[in-house]
């Protein structure tokens, strides 16, 4: 469900990352007291409308929730089973709206801007000797390497399928883990080659 940055120059791209994150935070609190069907539906319409303001390419990005639909289905069915269809619809609408809103922020915000915006939140970690810069770098790495790891898994599947005619197997998990660990070595080396997580100027202090 991590969809990457969408190049553009829209109003949403220009909005400071911090403003967007605070908006997401406030809205996610608001949905707790406003526990009604119409509010949840309106929220979802509003969020989809945000995508629409980015144009056709933006609206396309709504598809990001597709892999989550089965989970939404289960959540809805659990509510039906418990005899509360309305709550089921509200739960699904809310989840969709919040996932889409969070995704809207990630497609319209540079990783770097997002990192700078969340860095202050990690400051308390300094007490434990963890630099906030490292934490935000880790977040960037996760987002960067999800598509890379998916590609690695796809190539393993291909190699497996070429010899067994099956596309998937639990047997692929161990080699996948090994590939991922090997990759962390390479990435760590590349990061070290450019001054490491803390950079050059920070040494002097």
């Amino acid at each position, binding site marked *: 469900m991590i969809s*990457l*940055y969408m190049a553009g120059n829209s109003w949403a791209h220009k909005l400071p990352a911090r403003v967007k994150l605070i908006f997401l935070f406030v809205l996610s609190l608001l949905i707790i007291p406003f526990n009604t069907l119409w509010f949840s539906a309106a929220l979802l319409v509003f969020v989809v409308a945000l995508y629409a303001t980015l144009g056709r390419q933006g609206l396309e990005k709504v598809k990001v929730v597709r892999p989550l639909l089965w989970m939404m289905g289960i959540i809805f069915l659990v509510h039906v089973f418990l005899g509360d269809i309305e709550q089921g619809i509200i739960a699904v609408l809310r989840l969709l709206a919040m996932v889409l809103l969070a995704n809207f922020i990630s497609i319209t915000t*540079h*990783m770097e801007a997002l990192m700078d915006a969340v860095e202050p939140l990690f400051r308390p970690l300094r007490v434990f000797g963890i630099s906030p810069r490292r934490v935000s770098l880790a977040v960037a790495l996760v987002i960067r390497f999800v598509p890379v790891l998916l590609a690695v898994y796809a190539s393993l599947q291909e190699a497996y399928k070429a010899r067994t005619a099956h596309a998937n197997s639990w047997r692929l998990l161990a080699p996948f883990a090994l590939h991922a660990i090997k990759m962390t070595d390479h990435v760590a*080396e590349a990061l*070290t080659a*450019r001054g490491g997580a803390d*950079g*050059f*100027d920070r040494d002097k202090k």
Partner: protein
Amino acid sequence: MNDTSKTINFDHVSIERSGSTIIRDLSVALPDQRVGIIGRNGSGKSTLVRSLNGLLPVSAGSLLVHGVSAEEGAKKLARVTGFVFQNPDHQLIFPTALEELSFGLRQIGVGKADAKVQSLALLRDHGIEQLGERPVHELSEGQKQLICILAVLIMEPKLLVLDEPFSSLDLRTRVALRRKLEKLDQQILFVSHELDALSDYDKVLWIEDGKLKQFGVPADVLAAYQAHELSGVDLHFEGVARA
């Protein structure tokens, strides 16, 4: 004597990698602008060049890179030596090219706004401004490798080390990237199996079993390497078949 500020000097250098000595007692001075490094897989080429950036420490002897001694620490070496790896997917840390380039500048203490302006300017100089905002995983292999090279160059290293960076690229892209390298002011150390690509270089260094086998002008070293490696190829495979 050569000007040490523009020279790489290995003096009886040994380098260990995960406990075993890969490079043993190697001495050579490299004042030339363009140096190629050749040798078999596993001969120690990668190990040797990794010491220049401080990625691997020198276990014996002394190493001087553009006036910086290995004893001054890995970070000092990393500041003078830019390193481009074989696989761009291991080197690109950020989701977009612009962030990748800015990262290098921010590493050396440039402010956020300036870093962005300078990164855009460099992309524009190379006619790829439009790639700046695209997610890197959507770029072609050649574009990715160019971004890797630019992300290193933007930090203005004095020496650029390339460890088989073009091995997964097509001929056209290789030639295009090589031409870009030719124009650079930096000293270049190029580890490669493409022997023809090194024929225009100033010098070629041939490494075998962690030792210096031959060092000289490309015409001599490349010819000797080819003759040495191709004689007995059949014999070698006979040996494999029997085993």
